[in-house]
């Protein structure tokens, strides 16, 4: 394979910051990315993930900190001098150029000889499986094909780093799954280093080697997908990872890492997170699939409705205090009935503090 990623060892963001007036869109982001990694920047909209990507690309000047590619400082370079490949959210294909011209644009700007451009463009188009579409204009392509052109255009320049800004958000659900696999395949084939911005946790979990969870301009947690999925470090990361239920209570026991929480009308068990102490006020956080109707000790809730999901049922209920809960059950429960919910103690998490 002639297209291959340029060589470097690591990319470091050192307390990278960006302020818009008084608003800190990015606060002291420090992160080291090794060559060949697939990194997902994950967070809700407005969390600073796109700002971070634009600072990396040089499209937005940073207002503090630095970016280092090995021993070279690059945050002062203009975007055209950084040589990163970028895939934009709306693709940003040049509407007046054919597919081949779009893909070859970056090489043409570098003054690559024409014969070599033709050869590498052909190869890149083959890699994204668009053979035969070379002479079409972007307007004549479907959304998925435009996406492939955007990827080919970004990788053909053999960038040390490929930046992707929510590249799948404009595609329909089926195409999104297909392109997701495609992006990972291309990443593996080229051995490139990819930074991928998304607000979709499922996308991040399935694609990335490491996930960087961001919130309010700051990094909240960095970790492998399995690690983040099982052990989110804070309650808002947990919430983003699908821990939708929250119950507050007082810690009455901690035994071999499992905390018992006395809650309104019953008690629940969950994994104790670091810093949790006996008699603390604490918050239990659990996914709906880790809460079930159980014995007399659980949290009493009134069932509002049940949904059939094939293998099991998902129930929606409220506690006596009015907090919404969702849970999984093997058989339906009648609306209005009171059940006691218990947690899977190895999966629910208990965080110190309340009102988080």
């Amino acid at each position: 394979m002639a297209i291959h990623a340029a060589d470097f060892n690591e990319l470091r963001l050192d307390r990278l910051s960006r302020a818009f007036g008084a608003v800190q869109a990015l606060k002291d982001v420090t992160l080291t990315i090794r060559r060949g990694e697939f990194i997902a920047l994950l967070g809700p909209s407005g969390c600073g993930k796109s700002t971070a990507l634009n600072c990396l690309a040089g499209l937005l000047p940073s207002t503090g900190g630095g970016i280092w590619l090995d021993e070279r400082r690059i945050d002062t370079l203009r975007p055209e001098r950084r040589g990163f490949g970028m895939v934009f959210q709306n693709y940003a294909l040049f509407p007046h150029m054919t597919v081949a011209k779009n893909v070859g644009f970056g090489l043409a700007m570098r003054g690559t000889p024409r014969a070599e451009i033709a050869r590498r463009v052909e190869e890149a188009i083959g890699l994204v499986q668009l053979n035969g579409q070379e002479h079409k204009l972007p307007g004549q392509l479907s959304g998925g094909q435009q996406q492939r052109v955007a990827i080919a255009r970004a990788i053909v320049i053999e960038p040390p780093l490929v930046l992707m800004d929510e590249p799948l958000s404009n595609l329909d659900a089926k195409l999104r799954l297909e392109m997701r696999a495609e992006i990972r395949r291309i990443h593996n084939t080229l051995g490139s280093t990819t930074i991928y911005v998304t607000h979709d946790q499922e996308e991040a979990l399935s694609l990335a080697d490491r996930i960087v969870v961001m919130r309010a301009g700051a990094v909240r947690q960095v970790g492998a997908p399995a690690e983040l999925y099982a052990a989110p470090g804070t309650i808002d990361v947990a919430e983003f990872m699908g821990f939708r239920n929250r119950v507050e209570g007082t810690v009455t026991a901690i035994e071999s890492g499992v905390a018992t929480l006395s809650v309104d009308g019953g008690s629940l068990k969950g994994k104790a997170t670091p810093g949790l102490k006996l008699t603390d006020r604490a918050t239990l956080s659990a996914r709906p699939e880790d809460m079930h109707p159980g014995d007399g000790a659980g949290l009493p809730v009134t069932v509002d409705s049940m949904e059939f999901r094939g293998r099991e049922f998902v129930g929606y209920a409220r506690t006596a205090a009015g907090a919404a809960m969702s849970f999984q059950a093997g058989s339906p429960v009648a609306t209005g009935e009171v059940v006691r919910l218990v947690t899977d103690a190895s999966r629910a998490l208990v965080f110190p503090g309340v009102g988080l």
Partner: protein
Amino acid sequence: MIRGKSLSERLWAAAVWSLIGFFILNLFGLIATVVTSSFATRWLGTWLPAGWTTRWYTAAWTEFQLDDVMVVTFQIVFLVVALSGLIGVPAAYAMARRDFPGKRLVMLLFLLPLLVPPITFGIPLATVLYRTGLAGSMSGVVIANLVPTVPFVILVMIPFIEQVDPRIEAAARVFGAGTFQLFRHVLLPILAPGVLAALLLVLVRTIAMFELTFLTAGPTSQTLVVALYYAVFAAGVRSVQSIDAMAVIYMVTTLVWLVIALRFVNPTQIVARAKQQPAE
């Protein structure tokens, strides 16, 4: 948006900004000259006049019979505004909501009077109006002014109506609104801001419309801008300050409406007609 920081880019930016500054400076200079002169007692060969007075305004008002001219101007302008709304808005509604054979041709028909400059079509139009005896009267002036304003209203209103979801009308029908009720309770309130904006633009344009009024007006149907033209044309007959006082009165009349219009529209909409590209 990528902002450069190198020296050559800063120099280039500075050059562009000074061009803009120079243009605006001269623009304000020419307006300020007229205003200053209109308040001057005597102004010859100095930076500023020898003294200040307001008497040119009363002089201009009587010399140029501005009370008559103002009445005529506003009668003409308000007739043009009302009629172009009445003819234009329903047509815009039909153009926005229906696809009928020959629609592109009709669109071209509405574009032409906006693309062809008024002096070019004004001469044959005036000829026809003189032949039919309408020119020289107020109705002739109103008719001539409607030629560009009716298409203008249509072209401003079409995109406005298109962005109103037709399902709103369908919903009103489903809930039992008749045609009149639909118009009164649904369409009118939704379209009112667009109509207001379009008509304000027509108003500003008609006050300033020189060519068509000039070619079709008689002595009793002159608008302010035509009266100003004749005054400048015959300069030397009256004192400069008196003409400038009249120019200031014209300026204030126009700018007051411009300021009102700008509360409802974007400045670029005043040249919006051209954003409508000729039929492609």
